[in-house]
């Protein structure tokens, strides 16, 4: 909506929204100055689900950190794992085998679809399209089934390891994944049929929450929010990591940067992710799924009963873990919400001296005030949905 005219008859009223509110997608508190229905100032108050994960990581050996960091942004756990494992691999200069690179790419992109489905379902719910939630969660469940099949867990899978992935994909996984690949674009088409020309959805999203591209860049906003404003910036294209350089995919961008563009960009990204998964599955190389470096990677289980040396390596890795030479690395990847960076400082011991996550939700949340000031309360809620913050990642 356009800037509403200042009404001099109405007093400013400060109201509190949250921390527990269905529309805040987590434990987020908003202190909002209202003039009638119009937002004049806004301050997000965060920290309600801060659990000190970064501090706890300093007390764990490197391989035990992986399940911790997964629980930061609990909708894109594969990305947290990749950011951390990738940073440690760069610290110890460990190359991962091609099959692991491809498997990681497949699971990251499945996770991106999953994350966007959760976003689409809950945000459409905020805007009154209740049925979207059921449709999106139906497809999300199929992705979780795939995760469960390969990793044994539906969420927080601990599948990525320093050096590769913990296990190869099981028999029957490929057939099931291909079924999903064939069906998902059809499903996305159905979502578009439901929402693209839906009068209510259009009037709630068109022209809502526009922030100019330059301002978004100043605020450090990345991911679909930035791309919706017309900036084709995606770390998968810009930097060389995993199997992305070998993949053929497009970066969807918007033009205006309103809520509708953000919706279109994310929906188009789901289709592109399906394409990446399909290409990675077609080109999946044979060979080992984890690096063969016994100083960092557990030996195969079968060797433990036959090889004394393997038993010693296994014992050393499980008890003390591996030591990492002093140094520091910042490694960033494109998560569903933007640049997810992981900074790891090693001091030569078997535990990291500092693990820091540059979480995209945390940084993107700074743009929320720019999106909302001057609009109605209802539009503020729509903008928050389109911003897609995950409070577990914001608070860590």
């Amino acid at each position, binding site marked *: 909506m356009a800037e509403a005219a200042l009404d001099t008859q109405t007093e400013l009223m400060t109201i509190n929204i949250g921390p527990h509110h269905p529309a805040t997608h987590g434990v987020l508190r908003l202190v909002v100055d209202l003039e009638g229905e119009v937002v004049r100032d806004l301050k997000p108050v965060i920290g309600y689900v801060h659990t000190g994960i970064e501090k706890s990581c300093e007390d764990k050996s490197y391989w035990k950190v992986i399940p911790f960091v997964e629980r930061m942004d609990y909708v894109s756990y594969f990305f947290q794992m990749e950011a951390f494992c990738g940073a440690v691999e760069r610290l110890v200069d460990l190359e991962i085998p091609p099959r692991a690179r491809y498997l990681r790419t497949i699971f990251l992109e499945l996770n991106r679809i999953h994350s966007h489905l959760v976003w689409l379902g809950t945000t459409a719910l905020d805007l009154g399209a209740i049925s979207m939630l059921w449709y999106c969660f139906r497809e999300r469940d199929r992705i979780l089934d795939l995760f469960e099949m390969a990793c044994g867990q539906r969420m927080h899978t601990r599948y990525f390891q320093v050096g590769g992935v913990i296990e190869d994909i099981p028999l029957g996984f490929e057939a099931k994944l291909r079924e999903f690949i064939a069906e998902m674009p059809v499903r996305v088409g159905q979502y578009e049929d439901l929402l693209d020309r839906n009068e209510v959805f259009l009037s709630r999203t068109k022209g809502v929450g526009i922030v100019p591209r330059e301002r978004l860049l100043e605020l*450090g906003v990345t991911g679909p929010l930035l791309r919706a404003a017309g900036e084709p910036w995606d770390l998968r294209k*810009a930097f060389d990591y995993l199997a992305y350089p070998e993949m053929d995919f497009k970066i969807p961008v918007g033009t205006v940067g309103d809520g509708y563009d953000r919706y279109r960009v994310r929906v188009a990204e789901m289709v592109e992710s399906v394409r990446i998964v399909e290409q990675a599955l077609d080109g999946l190389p044979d060979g080992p799924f984890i690096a063969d470096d016994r100083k960092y990677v557990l030996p195969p289980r079968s060797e433990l009963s036959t090889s004394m040396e393997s038993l010693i390596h296994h014992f050393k890795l499980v008890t003390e873990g591996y030591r990492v030479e002093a*140094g*520091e690395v*910042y490694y960033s990847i494109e998560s569903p919400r933007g640049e997810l960076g992981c*900074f790891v400082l090693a001091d030569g011991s078997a535990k990291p*001296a500092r693990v820091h996550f540059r979480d995209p939700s945390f*940084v993107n949340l700074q743009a929320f005030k720019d999106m909302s000031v001057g609009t109605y309360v209802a539009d503020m809620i729509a903008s928050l949905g389109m911003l897609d913050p995950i409070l577990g990642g914001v608070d860590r």
Partner: protein
Amino acid sequence: MPDAPGLELIRGEIEGDHPGAVLATSFDRDQPALVVDPAQILAVLGWLRDAPGQGYRFLSSLHAADYLPAEPRFAVHYELLNRDRVERLRVKALLADPAAGPDSPPADGQLPEIDSCVELFPTANFQEREVYDFFGIVFRGHPDLTRILMPDDYVGWPQRRDFPVGGEPVTFTYNERNYG
């Protein structure tokens, strides 16, 4: 990334405009870093952002680390990004702990200070608050330097290395009342 000679070129150019600003360079694990005099941090960041041919206009991440027992102990890291050339550059400002001087009498409650870069990079707002919250590093000129993730009335700087894990006491009220 600028390679090792490229990093020295950048250092030389900064030296020309701001003598003494760059204290050291490092090129570890293919990641270039400039160690900068904290008093001149804004000059260097501004130069890297605006000088022709540089264009590190995007601040990816601002975070801190505690290098205890090294001296100076703290460092604020600025992960800069040039989006045109797709190059990252880390700028580090090392800060000593004023509360732990060996020759001066220990001044309790004194916090390390550095200039805030919110004017240059508005994205630093939340991230500087986070560093203040966890390390007790004060950013001079920050518009709203309050705790961001910890409660407002919290005492202590939990991400410092000498702050113990489990340093937060848990009150077991039931046990205290009945068995304490």
